[in-house]
């Protein structure tokens, strides 16, 4: 009887031990523990600064009083702010569109190269993405240099008028977008190339038998098969391009007359150089809700298509 009582009393402990053992052995637990250092690192380097910048955005200029959304109210009344919003949208949307387009077509060309010679091309085409942008943009700056532009040197020799690349607002915008496309297109290329390789060849063969042309194959096979990767790359690139700093900073510093400023460069100008950190933080946070909503919709679409598959 006494033994039985002891056994009964001990059972929950054993079961608890078993449950604990099971919990520890569960794949998700192991995965979590293994990812924990990275999670902590992200919390320290991403989450904390993000929360801190949200806090800063709620302070007044001297950072002594809480003003709630006062900084945003102030920004919404400034013409320069709306100009920066417009420019950031033009910059990010056009750059991402052309990066995706160029990446898509170049990925097709590279995909068509026989496997033996493909590696060389892949390596060469990735070079712009591999060079730190601060360095490569300096190279571009010398090509666009206001006085000694290499492009203009060639233009003059072939009888074309020199272009004021960085001094004329329209050309300055073109230049910063061009450099961003040059830098970012290889990312799309490599992602699309990987996606293309996973499209079953039989689908193309069947389409050929049915008499589909090149365009129809792209429209009815390639694009639907790559929809998820296109969505994710576009989303990722949109976020990164909206946050771009170095290209604009090095090429134009936001000029002429603020007409190439994007959120990051204007936030730096306000927050660090003009000593108004809360206003700078508010500018840099303005896109956060818009991009977050876009991310939710895009990722939900990707998820749904994943479930359908």
């Amino acid at each position: 009887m006494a033994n039985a009582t002891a056994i009964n009393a001990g059972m929950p402990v054993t079961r608890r031990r078993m449950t604990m053992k099971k919990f520890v052995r569960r794949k998700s637990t192991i995965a979590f523990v293994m990812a924990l250092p990275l999670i902590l690192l992200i919390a320290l380097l991403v989450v904390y600064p993000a929360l801190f910048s949200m806090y800063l955005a709620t302070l007044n200029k001297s950072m002594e009083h809480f003003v709630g959304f006062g900084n945003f109210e102030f920004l919404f009344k400034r013409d320069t702010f709306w100009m920066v919003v417009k420019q950031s949208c033009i910059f990010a949307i056009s750059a991402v569109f052309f990066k995706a387009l160029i990446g898509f077509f170049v990925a097709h060309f590279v995909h068509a190269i026989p496997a033996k010679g493909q590696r060389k091309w892949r390596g060469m085409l990735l070079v712009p993405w591999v060079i730190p942008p601060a360095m490569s943009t300096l190279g571009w700056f010398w090509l666009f240099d206001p006085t000694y532009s290499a492009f203009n040197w060639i233009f003059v020799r072939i009888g074309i008028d020199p272009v004021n690349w960085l001094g004329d607002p329209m050309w300055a915008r073109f230049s910063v977008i061009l450099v961003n496309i040059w830098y970012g297109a290889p990312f799309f290329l490599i992602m699309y190339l990987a996606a293309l390789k996973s499209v079953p060849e039989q689908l193309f063969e069947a389409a050929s038998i049915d008499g589909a042309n090149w365009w129809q194959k792209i429209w009815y096979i390639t694009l639907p098969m790559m929809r998820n990767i296109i969505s994710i790359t576009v989303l990722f690139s949109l976020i990164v391009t909206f946050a771009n700093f170095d290209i604009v900073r090095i090429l134009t510093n936001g000029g002429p007359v603020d007409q190439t400023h994007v959120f990051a460069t204007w936030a730096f100008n306000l927050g660090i150089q003009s000593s108004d950190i809360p206003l700078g933080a508010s500018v840099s946070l303005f896109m956060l809700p818009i991009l977050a909503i876009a991310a939710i919709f895009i990722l939900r679409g990707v998820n749904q298509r994943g479930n359908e598959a």
Partner: protein
Amino acid sequence: MSSSKKFSRRRFLATTAAASAVTLAPPYIRGAHAAGKLSVGFWDHWVPGANDTLTKICNEWAAKEKVDIKIDYITSQGNKNILTIVAEAQAKSGHDILQFPAWDASFNAKNLAPVDDVMNAAIKNNGSAPSVVEYLGKVDGHWIGVAATTGSQLKGPCGRIDLLKKYAGLDIVKMYPGAGGKPDTALQDQWTWEAFLAAAEKCHKGGNPFGLALGQTSDSVDWVGALFNAYGAQLVDAKGNITVKSDAVKQVLEYAQRLVKVLPPDVFAWDDASNNKYLISGQGSLIMNPPSAWAVAKRDNLKVAEQCWTFPSPKGVKGRYAPGQPYFWGTWKWSKNIPAAKSLLAHLSERASIERLVAASGGYDIPGFSGLRDFKTWAEEGPPKGTVYNYPPRADQIVSIAGAPAPVGIANQIYNQATMTKMIAKCTQGGESIDKAIGWGASELEGFMRV
């Protein structure tokens, strides 16, 4: 007679504590680093070797004062020095002494230990501080930074002797000769912004235009600020009232419209290196810059360097304003060794130290004291000998900064957001009317009033 003083519990504790302190405290030994540690963040100088001299001066002081000193040189490339200041101010930790560019000392005033004692002693020995140094370094009647020698600069004209004489008939060496020469005061009186424009037109016609940046970086903002001040064109007055809608501002913008016509068309895209390159290449006949452009020309294009001469800015109706950019050395309130920091700052503010620093920079650095304008470096540097003799501000020059005399919090934004050059760009390159450019300026300034 019994003692009236009772040996109370409190008195017992105090006596015991004092006795313990005497007994337990280690005997005072004046060791190698008896006066503690000091970490310093100086601006990383452009001129090769200038940092070495500063290090040497600091180490000599540290050895004498028994301080363990650690020096970091922080570059201004990519605004790293400003980022460091902001980060240390946020973290309330970092260097004991930090070097602050023009605006950053006053912005951090509440975090900086007053250095009235150091500055007042330095002024007594070296002469008064120019008004711009006081404007930026003194807050609520207290010095919050010591006028730094390294980095402090002026951006007056650096012209080509040959080209200005050839095209504009302007003898700049006669007007502002080197050491020992007799200046032509009549020519100096005629050296106005109108004469400057006339010379710019002639040089443009001759094929070697003036290279005056009109972008959004400091070289552009500095000379434009001096032009505005010379005409008394204040965007915001000293009391903080917006005064951009004035005849003086209109006059400057009209002047700028005439001047821009004879400048290279790409000046709106120039950064701080563009004007240097323009002079060194031999294309430009005049730029507004410290003698660093000449120093590089000496290395890269000696023929150009031999024809360069730095001289004071033209004058306007309100005077001869020189575009200056003073730097400051400050010590954080939370520094653990403020006495040592102040001792070092006092040492660096001595005439002998300053003279060595000026020599090491080839005359680039301008001391923040009016009595220190007679160093032989400026007289002897060349070729041509005496090329930077007129670089330090003397006689009728008023050193100023763009945005002044507006309250520093507003002027800082006028400066860093390049409001003046943008107004010029709008009514010239942008094709807008002067009234529209002024209206735009007024709207920007309203935004700067934020507290």
